[in-house]
């Protein structure tokens, strides 16, 4: 028997079983996410680091009540960043990530369950999440609640004696509100608790000019609030505004502001532009070169005082379209980002460090 026959029979059997499971239920007001597929090549290049690879995602509904999704994501990293070249040797490694999700719709509610697993030679991360959203107030308001639990295993190259773990809990709540026939807004809040090894076994801190392994606290509690507004401007174009405030128990406070504009050109072309500004203050125990002995010390740039400005553009071209059946789009996006650090010195030059980065995305997206 041909392999395709077997696959067809298994698929028909699965469809029948799942279909009968989920067919029972009341009338539905919410729509399931559309059946879709995405294939992407992504690339990041900046500060001596390149990370690129393919990514695939497929989403398919079963019995018009459950939508299943699966994705595969690859990051091939070549790292010669300033931390690496000043304290160790450049290296290459690969990260593979698999995700699986299931969305279930019942009347005005949607329940989403997701799992993901990410592996690289010295780091394994597993996540599972549950999200529930409820449409209310005549469909004008959507309230959502969610939870993610993560468990990581941290290792170190050529050091089998080093093995540690980290766990993460994320709790989120959000409201999306239709304001007028042309404006929609959302407010999201997320509380995150991290516990375990929260640093890098390779990273070096400086105390009195001497190199020492970094010492991070083993707990961190963070909060983030995000506000977004989208407005239709009436000429086949729209404006997007976003502000996020983040704070945590390591004393990092961060502001993110993003402004975007989208516009159709004819029936086939859609262009997006965005401008993003990010600014954060340093963690309590961050020091470029500590001049006193403290319990915790880090020279992780991610915890320093810095800002970044990103300018992005995206273009989507509708390649094939049969209304009611399928649509295929070709997409390309690029973002140029400038990072500028206030209290992280480039030890090679003695000046504050900064670098430029480019983020490229080329992808095909289809709905069917």
């Amino acid at each position: 028997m041909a392999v395709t026959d077997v696959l067809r029979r298994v698929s028909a059997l699965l469809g029948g079983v799942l279909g009968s499971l989920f067919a029972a239920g009341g009338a539905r007001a919410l729509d399931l996410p559309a059946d879709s597929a995405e294939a992407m090549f992504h690339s990041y290049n900046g500060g001596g680091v390149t990370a690129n690879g393919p990514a695939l995602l497929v989403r398919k509904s079963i019995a018009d009540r459950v939508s299943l999704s699966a994705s595969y994501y690859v990051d091939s990293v070549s790292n010669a960043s300033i931390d690496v070249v000043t304290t160790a040797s450049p290296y290459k490694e690969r990260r593979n990530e698999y995700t699986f999700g299931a969305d279930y719709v019942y009347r005005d509610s949607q329940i989403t369950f997701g799992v993901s697993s990410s592996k690289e030679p010295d780091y394994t991360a597993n996540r599972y999440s549950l999200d529930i959203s409820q449409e209310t107030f005549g469909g004008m308001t959507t309230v959502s609640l969610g939870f993610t639990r993560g468990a990581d295993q941290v290792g170190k190259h050529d050091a089998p004696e080093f093995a540690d773990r980290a766990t993460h809990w994320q709790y989120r709540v959000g409201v999306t509100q239709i304001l007028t026939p042309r404006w929609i807004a959302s407010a999201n809040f997320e509380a995150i608790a991290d516990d375990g090894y929260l640093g890098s076994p390779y990273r070096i801190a400086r105390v009195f000019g001497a190199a020492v392994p970094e010492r991070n606290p083993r707990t961190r509690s963070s909060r983030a609030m995000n506000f977004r507004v989208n407005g239709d401007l009436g000429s086949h174009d729209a404006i997007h505004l976003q502000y996020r405030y983040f704070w945590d128990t390591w004393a990092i406070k961060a502001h993110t502001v993003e402004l975007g504009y989208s516009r159709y050109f004819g029936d086939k072309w859609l262009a997006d532009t965005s401008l993003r500004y990010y600014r954060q203050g340093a963690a309590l125990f961050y020091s470029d070169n500590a001049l006193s002995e403290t319990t915790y010390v880090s020279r992780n740039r991610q915890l320093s005082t810095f800002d970044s400005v990103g300018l992005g553009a995206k273009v989507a071209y509708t390649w094939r379209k049969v209304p009611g059946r399928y649509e295929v789009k070709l997409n390309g996006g690029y973002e140029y980002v400038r990072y500028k650090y206030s209290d992280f010195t480039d030890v090679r030059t003695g000046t504050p460090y900064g670098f430029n980065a480019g983020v490229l995305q080329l992808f095909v997206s289809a709905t069917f």
Partner: protein
Amino acid sequence: MTRCLLAFTVLLTMLLGGCAIQPWVKPYERERLADPIMAFSRNTLPERHRDHVREVREGAHGATGVQGGGCGCN
């Protein structure tokens, strides 16, 4: 006392009655909001990628509505 309670209940009922706001954007008025350019999230993979790029370089994360996994942050 009973009269006070009754008056309070009547007043509360009137106030709550006045607060009953009806949805003011009807389903047939939401055509523009259904356009993809008005969506907070359009494509999953590029958003997950951009979120990951930011998360491994910035101290802040969360509340973006993007579900990611893993680290790759050394």
